């Protein structure tokens, strides 16, 4: 499973990071999110799916 945050859509709601803190990191200055790595470790898949489902801007793409 791979994950990506669309920087055009992300508005920095931080819910992804609250849900899956190991897989997302927030920019210190504007709070926008990016994936720690595109490849999601098996033990993080569920949290990442939940994060994608929680993002109000629907900015997280799983592929």
């Amino acid at each position, binding site marked *: 499973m791979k994950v990506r945050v669309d920087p055009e859509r992300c508005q920095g709601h931080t819910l992804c990071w609250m849900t899956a803190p190991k897989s997302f*990191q927030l920019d*210190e200055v*504007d709070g926008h999110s*990016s994936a720690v790595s595109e490849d999601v470790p098996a033990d993080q898949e569920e949290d990442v799916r939940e994060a994608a489902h929680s993002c109000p*801007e*629907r900015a997280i793409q799983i592929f």
Partner: protein
Amino acid sequence: MSEANGNDDRKKHRVHFDRHTPEYRHEFEEITHELQAKCPIAWTDTHGGHWVASGNREVFELARSAEFLSNDHDVKGERRGYKGITIPTPPRAAEAQGGFLEMDPPAQRHYRQALNPYLSPAAVARWVPFVDEVVRACLDEKIEEGRIDFVDDLANIVPAVLTLAMMGIPLKDWTVYNEPAHASVYTPPDSPDMPRVAELSRNMGISLYMALQEIRRSPRPGLIDALVRAEIDGENPPDEELVGVLALLIGGGFDTTTALTAHALEWLSQNPTERDRLSRERSTLLDSATEEFLRFYAPAPGDGRTISADCEIAGQRFEEGERLWLSWAMANRDPSVFPDPDRVDLARKGNRHSSFGLGIHRCIGSNVARTVFKRMVTAVLDRMPDYRCDAEGTVHYETIGIIQGMRHLPATFTPGERLGPSLDETLQTLQRACDEQRLAEPVVRTARADTAR
């Protein structure tokens, strides 16, 4: 004739919708579900006529269509005469633009870029010890008495003091801003108290203008300093515009977090088993409970927009110049996205609520709001675990057209012991900390974050 028919056809879903009436507050769930089932985008003739979006998908698609929506409040009639985000435009607000929330990009984006480094999660995390001290002092003032008003004695004070600290305004001035910030929201335009409230608001504007002048003369870190240095569209904006931005920061920072905290504390008093569970399982439950209270009680229930070009969005045709109300509060109750939407579920998953708004105008202070809310609620759970709110003395805002808030929330609890100095003394100590440690400096990007991007 064909024009009129065309109009009728476009506006075939007509409803009578007036969110400024007490009925809208009392019958919120019925009205919401009826609108969502019949016409998630409807036309209403109230307040000069406007569209109302209540369905989750519709609100989402509309809020994100920045190319067809404008937030502009063209007070001086220099552009297209748009009326900003309040429906109807209150006569008082007609005099002033509501900061960057009533602007379009690129100026709006420049403002946010200037302020983000003070409001990001990393920036806000630095304030936690400060917030905890203010909360401690507020609770200490009442802990021996066994009685507190959670609005007057806690939830009004902490967000106010923190907002001023982040701006760079002396903490002791919180009382100057407190009443106008709340009263201007809950006082109906036709109230006999309105002239007094308007006067308070004017004085607040003057205080903000003076704070701006003072920080220009002798700089101190904070949001105001960021604004007096900001380049917006290539230049530093006039003071009049900056005062509008400061008023927006006060409005956003004060009343909304107060409203959220009061509603959550009231609900937890009515649901003591859930309150004990939240207290016990806070390490796993506090984040989701916070989002759930945000979803359920949406302190800022919606935003107005103006359609800036003819377009079709979410299956509805709109014409340039039409007004639109995006209801975050109703979108949060859409059963197609939130199972059992009218129930508070502290462990709710996939809670993609829109209480901070959606799209480019999303609330810039959400990290502040969440942090302050969590610190206040957990401190109450720790120090007043058996509190009971007094329904008789509780005063909700009569209408929820602007903010879903509360004026008073008295409660009783088993008295406890003070842990430290009084609120006044605490604010003096914290003021020194702000000055000496320059707490309100912005965060700067570290090398690690740079490479990570």
